[in-house]
């Protein structure tokens, strides 16, 4: 069981990390989702124990499954869900303003913006970078 868990966590994390290195923002977002779910699965794996349901009354002599990790993973799932939603909305915001999902295009647009700013501040080698 532990081996199965560790294999799944490894594959999920590896795939996620690979996707994070892409230029396409949707793939990056998918990578973030995969990586955070790998972490959730890891939490479950950290408290992997066989036993009865941890609800009182507990039949005498039986070992109990660890309830702490389940509480932890619930919280972690909610957090990763929220962050993924936030990331996707940010990606959508980028798409609506640039009609592109490529991180390179975004840097290009940024550079144009700062070059325009620099041009308007002629003769200054070092400045605030964005005006007062």
């Amino acid at each position: 069981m532990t081996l199965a868990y560790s294999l799944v966590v490894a594959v999920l994390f590896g795939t996620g990390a690979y996707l994070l290195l892409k230029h396409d923002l949707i793939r990056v977002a998918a990578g973030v989702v995969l990586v955070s779910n790998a972490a959730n699965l890891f939490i479950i794996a950290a408290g992997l124990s066989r036993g009865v349901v941890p609800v009182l009354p507990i039949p005498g002599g039986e070992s109990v499954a660890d309830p702490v990790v389940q509480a932890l993973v619930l919280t972690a799932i909610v957090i990763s869900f929220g962050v993924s939603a936030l990331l996707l909305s940010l990606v959508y915001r980028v798409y609506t303003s640039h009609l592109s999902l490529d991180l390179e295009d975004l840097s290009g647009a940024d550079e144009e913006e700062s070059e325009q700013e620099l041009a308007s501040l002629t003769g200054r080698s070092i400045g605030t970078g964005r005006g007062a």
Partner: protein
Amino acid sequence: MLVFPLGVLWVAAVVLSLLDGRRQRVGYLAVGALTISVIGLIVLLIDILNNGRAEQVAGNWAYGVGIQLRADVLDVTFALLSVGVILVATTYEVLGRVRSRAFPALACFMATGLIGLSLTGDAFNFYVFFEIAMIAAYVLAGYGERTRQLRAAIIFIIVNLLGSVLFLISVAGLYHLTGTLDLLEIQRRITIVDQQPAILLATMIFVAFAIKLGIFPFHFWLAAVYTGTRPAVAAMLSGALANIGSYGLIRFGTTMPRELEIGAPVLLALGSVSIVYGGFQALSARSATEVLAYSSIGQVGYILIALGLGGHLALVAAILFSIVNAVNKALLFLAVPLRGWLVGGIIAIAAFSVAGVPPSSGFFGKLGIFRAAVADDQPLVIALIFIGSLLSFIYMFQIYNARFWEISAEESREGVVPTPIARRSLVCVLAAFVIVIGLWPEPLIYLSEQAAIAVEAGG
């Protein structure tokens, strides 16, 4: 008592998120809530200095069942520092014009998360509050909503999410290894558990906090984000949010002392590389905010060096330097875009402080590390502190020179438009604070001493 500073901000943040933050009145509500929280933290700090550690289990649950809040001097000091910086940055933005309705609420949420993670005594709640602060920061990084801010926000969110996930995995690992999430219990049990997995976990925790701080091999996101965000947000990120990194390194480093000692050469090496790399990058940067961003990379190197040196003196120095550095960075990010009378003086003070020249507070920050290095007999580190200070002296005065001595073509044509006096006086107060600490450093040194004693005694 313990819940008060946290609760005030939490309630305020929820209420504020329903209001339109672009109105100045709403902004002042946020400033008021932050001020109340700061006062609460000061009262708490005085109480803890007199009576020792404060503990409380939320909701009257039994010890070990409910959510544990625990505050020693280190916790409250860092909470106070972070909320103080957020208070100044929020006031700065409110005195101008707030451009987004969510800004005051987000500032309060970030402060809530930062207080929470300092006051909690439990590794998982540390993660939860850490995420509350981070999520607020993710949204704030996009504040301004121009291409540059959007790009900064995307880079910031992706890199830091990876850091958070690493931290979450190591918290789960700590639970698996020690069977508890209570930081005090972990500190007790970590010395008797198997060392190999503990080293692995310590490495992951280090990487997670190093990403937050922007230490050398993990710095790649920092320059784009700090130069891309607006000044108030950059001040919050570098003066408050980065405290997660320094506080986390100090807290978890003292929780796992055996692993810290093994990792000490790595900390020293990475710290040195950070100082030199940050210094040279700052020298060749083309805009003032870029100089500041790279200077942040260099300055956090000193915290790593202090931790790597080890021992009581070095721990005190690490705490003192983290505080001084956070105030310096907040001051600089807020001061650089300003124009008009007094601003030159403010920048000069901040520059002296970063370079570590008396009578500014930065002098005592560096002096502590210097003394720890001398006590530990590390000539290389001593030389490095000199080189680092020299570099920072040069790049800080490059900013000063370009901003105040060479009048640009545009300015000579149109004349300088000064910033409103309210903003300037606010930053002036912060600069005065830096000088006062430099002239009368005893309270801060005493505070760092007590904080170091508290963490060394356990939790």
